[in-house]
């Protein structure tokens, strides 16, 4: 290519009919899974303001908004799209707690459904009682659940489901399968249900987007409670605050100090306004400081005190995020107590 000929703009190569069929099928599947999304009030996009930091802030704001809404189970909130960035994140919508992997997008309809657009997420669903099953859709996959904790992951058209405890019904295209505690299912072998392995990658579809590899990592299971000890105490112990760290070369970041102060303010607020304290603890737990751990446990404990169904979910999330946390033993006991109560 030594001398330049006039080449013109590169041609737009058409997409194959097979690819268009896949696009169309996936689209209808998504629309069917989120019918209420279609008619929601239009949003005005602000192109100019969409920058990378703004995106991150928007995602955080969405997470925060959804999380705060979670404090009012049964509240009528519009479907909300939650997107995680480079780090995993957790949200609570109604009494469903979702832990998103990095680079995951989920549309949450507080009524009874979630649409996994990409990536993977753990869903912890409180017992539904007489309410309709909670439904998670991911492409051609539909998972119906009564009350359990399970994970759904997708990469292109491939999908996988893993159940921590409980029972879900997996519908993939026309086939239905039940997946129970400790079992996993993958769209590569839709008729088989196998026990989980420690880690397995879902390979990306050929020519798939360079999405992060989805690795199925079962959440750390709670240690078996001592067989001789009674269930959790009626009044769980208060959270153990983090131990003070050794003096570092530089002063601790002001944010950490603020988090500590916030934690103590929330402690003082527990008796007067427990609902506000729970919301505050949850907000604190979403941050990355060392106060996130006791805050999450405090929220779970307070929710348990108030006999809120989300207490179990919060404890499960706590044990998943902080399996060796300072309050892990208490969380195990309290969770065992609550599981016995349901």
């Amino acid at each position, binding site marked *: 290519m030594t001398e330049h000929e006039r080449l013109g703009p*590169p041609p737009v190569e058409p997409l194959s009919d097979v690819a268009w069929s896949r*696009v169309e099928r996936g689209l209808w599947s998504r629309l069917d899974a989120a019918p209420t999304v279609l008619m929601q009030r239009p949003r005005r996009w602000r192109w*100019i303001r969409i920058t990378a930091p703004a995106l991150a802030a928007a995602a955080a704001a969405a997470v925060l908004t959804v999380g705060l809404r979670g404090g009012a189970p049964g509240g009528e909130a519009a479907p909300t799209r939650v997107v995680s960035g480079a780090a995993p994140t957790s949200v609570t919508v109604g009494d469903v707690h979702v832990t998103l992997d990095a680079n995951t997008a989920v549309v949450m309809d507080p009524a009874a459904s979630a649409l996994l657009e990409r990536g993977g997420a753990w869903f912890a669903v409180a017992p539904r009682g007489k309410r309709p099953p909670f439904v998670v859709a991911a492409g051609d996959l539909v998972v119906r659940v009564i009350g359990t904790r399970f994970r759904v992951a997708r990469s292109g058209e491939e999908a996988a489901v893993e159940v921590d405890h409980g029972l879900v019904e997996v519908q993939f295209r026309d086939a239905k399968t039940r997946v129970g505690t400790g079992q996993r299912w993958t769209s590569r072998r839709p008729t088989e249900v196998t026990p989980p392995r420690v880690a397995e990658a879902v390979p990306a579809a050929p020519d798939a987007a360079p999405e992060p590899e989805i690795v199925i990592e079962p959440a750390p299971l709670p240690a078996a409670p001592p067989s001789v000890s009674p269930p959790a105490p009626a009044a769980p112990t208060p959270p153990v605050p983090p131990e003070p760290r050794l003096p570092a070369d530089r002063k601790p970041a002001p944010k950490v100090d603020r988090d500590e102060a916030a934690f103590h303010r929330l402690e003082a607020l527990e008796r007067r306004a427990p609902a506000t304290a729970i919301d505050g603890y949850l907000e604190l737990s979403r941050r990355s400081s060392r106060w996130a751990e006791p805050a999450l446990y405090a929220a779970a404990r307070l929710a348990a005190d108030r006999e809120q169904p989300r207490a179990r979910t919060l404890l499960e999330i706590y044990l998943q995020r902080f399996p060796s946390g300072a309050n892990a033993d208490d969380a195990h006991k309290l969770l065992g107590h609550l599981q016995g109560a349901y």
Partner: protein
Amino acid sequence: MRIAPAVVRDHDRDLAHRAASGDRGAQRELFLAQRAAVHHALYRILGGNRDLEDLLQDAFFEIFRALPSFRGDSTLSRWCQTIATRVAYLAISRRRPQPVDLALVEEIVPDDADTRRQVMMREAARRLYAALERIEAKQRVAFALAVIDGRSLAEVAELTESTVIAVKTRVWRARKDLMKRAAKDDVLSAYLAELGGGS
């Protein structure tokens, strides 16, 4: 903003209304009618069909979500392309630069002039999009639509929900950045000059 003829506006509005109300037949009609335009916009910005299936799904999903807001000020086609542009922008602003191995394609110089031209064009386009991977997302979108796709600045401004001045600035900055990157690449440099991106 180009105003659509009344008959087109009425047809578009009617189709959008029926599709927004959940009429699957209307949704399919809209999908089939707009898929080429949406694909074209995405392809131009992304530079190939790789990863495009998911983005097409995302784009149409967003289109259907936003249908209740369609007022018919512009054609449905233009409106869909605006959403597709937004989806493409979000996709490239989220992801890391894609590694492009320029050594993968051998230097093929066929005898046939037409084939040789096609091979050269593919190679030049590949280098161009490899360079575009490294520049800021808004600049890339503006450059792809204005320079590679040959759209007017006003049209690009409409598609990117921006102003003509902003688009002009982005194209200028993209061009400057690309020329710097093409300093040691004769193929890219010549291609940029031909497309009007290197002057």
